[in-house]
């Protein structure tokens, strides 16, 4: 007598404990983002309607969420900027002559110095909404993160192993394939490390940009940074302690849920023959690897990805006669 349903059927069901954990985890994160993101859209009409920051420790998770959301929005823009700017700078001798000195100058302009200018500008851009202050803060985080990432990516592209470049030319890979098969993988480890670093540096700027005074007017955006500023003004050591603890928890959470899986994943891009001496372990990454949903999703999206790949490859087909020696 067979059991019904048969064991094989049960095993084939696309959900196991990792999947359930994955679904629950994603739902919790999405719910939290929605709850926190609402706060960015409230009205802001100085001097009557200004968001207040209170020193109640129970508000800290919400403030931490606001700051973290800002960080990730900035990280997204930084990554997009890095890939485009770094690639263009590394590929065009002509653009390099302008872009790299420009990058030098841009990264040397002190972000915190011109906060007053950007805040005034962004408030004018989004009148009557807190989005202006929000954008100014995100812009400050962006400018603090992006140069380091761009330099790292550009440098990786400029120091690609010669033999791999020659192989790519030999196989006549398209510009897009060259990007996804050689350049991005080769730059990945450095890029992720620098992004993680810059992200860490970004906390400094989120804290500094949430509460600033311009033209003797105090602007404060709900977040961990403005909480600390209020705590300093009121000489409240207890509140500062809570803020430190919250910050520590947030950093550990972001590390466990985001950076660690990324670093563990990027280890496969190491360019060497002997086995990697050390690999980063990440329970989230293992969860994602064991769960079936991500693989099913990837399978379902494969045709779409393939056609996108082909389309972009056709757009960036290799030139019929690659000029010798100019690829270095």
């Amino acid at each position, binding site marked *: 007598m067979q059991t019904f349903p048969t064991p094989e059927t049960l095993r084939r069901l696309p959900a196991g404990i990792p999947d359930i954990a994955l679904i629950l985890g994603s739902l919790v994160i999405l719910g939290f983002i929605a709850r926190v993101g609402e706060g960015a859209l409230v009205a802001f009409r100085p001097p009557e309607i200004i968001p207040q920051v209170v020193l109640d420790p129970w508000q800290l998770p919400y403030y931490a969420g606001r700051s973290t959301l800002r960080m990730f929005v900035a990280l997204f823009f930084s990554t997009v900027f890095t890939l485009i700017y770094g690639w263009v700078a590394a590929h065009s001798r002509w653009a390099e002559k302008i872009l790299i000195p420009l990058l030098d100058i841009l990264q040397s302009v002190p972000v915190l110095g011109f906060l007053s200018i950007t805040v005034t500008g962004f408030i004018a851009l989004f009148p009557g909404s807190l989005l202006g202050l929000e954008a100014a803060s995100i812009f400050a985080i962006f400018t603090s993160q992006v140069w380091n990432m761009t330099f790292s990516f550009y440098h990786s592209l400029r120091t690609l192993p010669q033999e791999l470049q020659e192989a790519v030319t030999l196989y006549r890979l398209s510009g897009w394939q060259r990007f996804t098969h050689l350049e991005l993988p080769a730059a990945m480890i450095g890029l992720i*490390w620098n992004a993680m670093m810059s992200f*860490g540096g970004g906390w*400094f700027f989120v804290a500094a940009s949430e509460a*600033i005074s311009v033209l003797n007017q105090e602007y404060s955006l709900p977040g961990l940074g403005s909480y600390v500023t209020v705590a300093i003004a009121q000489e409240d050591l207890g509140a500062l302690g809570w803020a430190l603890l919250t910050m520590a928890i947030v950093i550990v959470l972001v590390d466990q849920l985001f950076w660690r899986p990324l670093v563990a994943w990027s280890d496969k891009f190491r360019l060497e023959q002997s086995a990697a*001496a050390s690999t980063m372990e990440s329970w989230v990454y293992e969860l994602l690897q064991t769960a079936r949903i991500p693989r099913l999703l990837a399978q379902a999206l494969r045709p779409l990805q393939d056609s996108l790949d082909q389309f972009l490859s056709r757009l960036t087909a290799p030139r019929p006669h690659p000029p010798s020696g100019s690829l270095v």
Partner: protein
Amino acid sequence: MLLVWIVHFVSTSLGLGEVLKTFALALLTLLRVSLLLVVASLIWTPIGVAIGFQPRLARALQPIVQFLASFPANFVFPFATLLFIRSHISLDWGSILLMALGSQWYILFNSIAGAQRIPTDLREMAAAMGLHGWQRWRQLIIPGIFSAWVTGAITASGGAWNASIVSEIVSWGSTTLQATGLGSYIAEATTQGDWPRITLGIAMMSLFVVGLNRLLWQRLYQLAETRYHL
């Protein structure tokens, strides 16, 4: 074009004396940044290389290093400020510590990344050839991590300049400590909304950082690309 406008704007509203004053202030801040870079490199490069080379040590220390690197230095500023107030340390020196709290990690991180990027094959060969001590540093480690270190040092110096704006003037309640430097000059001008001084301060700081890039970092980068290319 922009430069002409800045020069015109500043010279008509502030005069040459103010420019010379900010130049002197920038030299002071430069002194702080250089001291910070030298000390931070001496401390963190060996530690970073050690972490990058030893898998077991790296695994044990990495979470801690990552945590320290991510922790925003300005959350710790109030405690440091209290310490400075209690023990009567002048912020002229204290600000170096505050600036280092945020920027030293760039050197550590990049040293780790650089050390990890040295191929295991090369390290095994160096060990087989019996390289150790200073020889090992000169032949293997410094060439191996040089470009990563330069990237780290550039960013650390950039970060330190940036941090000087919030490090050279700190407060606790109603007490405010201030150091003499370009950072506190910009911070003060921002609070007062003094546009000519904000512009002059930022332009001077950018000028110093760009100048350093041209005179120092760019050359080191070239050295990394030509001589120490792995």
